[in-house]
């Protein structure tokens, strides 16, 4: 005859088995995304203003020292700034070349990597300044899934902005946009994602770079709330520590029962 406590113990065993991760870590492993997969800004063959900056994604073992601007074969004195892209899970870098002096109107400027031309743009005075911040279409805020019964996913904030052909940059709210930012949380053409953000309130600024290499002013502060992580092997919506008040409440009953025995 099966006793009640045996049914209970059996249920505990089943639940414990279900709580164990069903997939190995290898099955869920993901390759790091290419955080700086965007075309050069200004784009190859584009027109750019005299005070343009050149935004270059870094790949592999490249460094800022490999890159340079040339006007008719003569090096254009430029300041190279390396910006970290840190979306919370992966890091990468990009380089911004800022000519120290205004570029001559009509000049054809070449971007060279280790002496090899990789891009060219023409300096004109017909390019309007980027005076307006990007228009944000949508911000998706997704809470993380811890895993356990299926593959985990990070919490994520994805910004979709217009024009869709502009580079979107997501910056921490305390980052300065008066000069070049030193860290970018997300970057991408038309949309940018920030991964693995903490649950709770997060504050971001959003800027864009147009095809002439101009950095826009930031949007108004965006404040989002990232939902708490969910899981497949949690004891409640919190932890087993939540049983503490009940265990404390049980102590007097346990003592009374011992006395009776």
């Amino acid at each position, binding site marked *: 005859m099966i006793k009640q406590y045996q049914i209970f113990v059996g*249920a505990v065993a089943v639940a414990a088995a279900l709580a164990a991760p069903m997939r190995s870590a290898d099955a869920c492993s993901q390759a790091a995304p290419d955080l700086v997969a965007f075309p050069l800004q200004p784009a190859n063959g584009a027109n750019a203003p005299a005070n343009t900056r050149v935004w270059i994604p870094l790949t592999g073992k490249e460094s800022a020292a490999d890159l340079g601007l040339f006007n008719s074969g003569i090096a254009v004195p430029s300041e190279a700034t390396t910006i970290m892209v840190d979306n919370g899970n992966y890091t990468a870098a990009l380089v911004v070349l800022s000519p120290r002096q205004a570029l001559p109107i009509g000049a054809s400027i070449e971007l060279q990597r280790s002496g090899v031309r990789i891009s060219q743009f023409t300096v004109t005075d017909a390019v309007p300044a980027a005076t307006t911040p990007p228009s944000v279409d949508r911000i998706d805020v997704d*809470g*993380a899934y811890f895993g356990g019964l299926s593959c985990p996913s990070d919490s994520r904030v994805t910004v979709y902005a217009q024009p869709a052909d502009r580079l979107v940059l997501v910056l921490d709210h305390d980052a300065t946009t008066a000069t070049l930012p030193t860290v970018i949380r997300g970057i991408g053409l038309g949309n940018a994602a920030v991964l693995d953000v903490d649950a709770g*309130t997060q504050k971001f600024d959003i800027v864009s770079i147009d095809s002439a290499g101009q950095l826009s002013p930031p949007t108004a502060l965006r404040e989002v*709330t990232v939902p*708490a992580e*969910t899981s497949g092997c949690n004891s409640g919506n*919190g932890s087993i520590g939540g049983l503490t008040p*009940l265990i404390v409440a049980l102590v007097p009953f346990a003592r009374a029962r011992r006395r009776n025995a």
Partner: protein
Amino acid sequence: MRRALTFLSLCLVVASALIAHVATAAADHNVAIGYVRGQGLGNFGVSAAYTIGPLELGSALFARVGDGERGVAIAPMLRLNVAHLRRTSTTFASTAYVEVAPQVVLTSFGGVTASGTGLSATVGYELRFANRLALFVGLGLHSRGVVAGRDGELNVTQASEFGPHIDAGLRYRL
């Protein structure tokens, strides 16, 4: 054949529960209120239930507060006391139970109203003391879909959840 046996077993369980109830019904206090945690909904909940024979109908209300979230989860429940109030000593009685509870989450993430639904099933054990207090502990599984909401450009989603949970609670029978 297998279905017939399963049906017969279920009938036996229900019949024995009903018989047990008849034997102990006089001692019942039909309304119970108290604290509850679990069902995958959190650590802070209040519950109320009404006993009808071996069945209990009730609902739990959980607070969902923290990390910018403000809301509640409502879990109406149907509990079957399998061996209703089997008296095991002079100071308390006990019963195993099976519980099914749909879930509705109504919450807000930083001002974005979001909602979702789910279902939990629990097997547990309750001790009822002579002073009308009752303690219960249960184990079960819950499945909840995404809790999602939209407000203008903001689209907030809390991931779905499926897994085991530990229920526990302290009730007082009125």
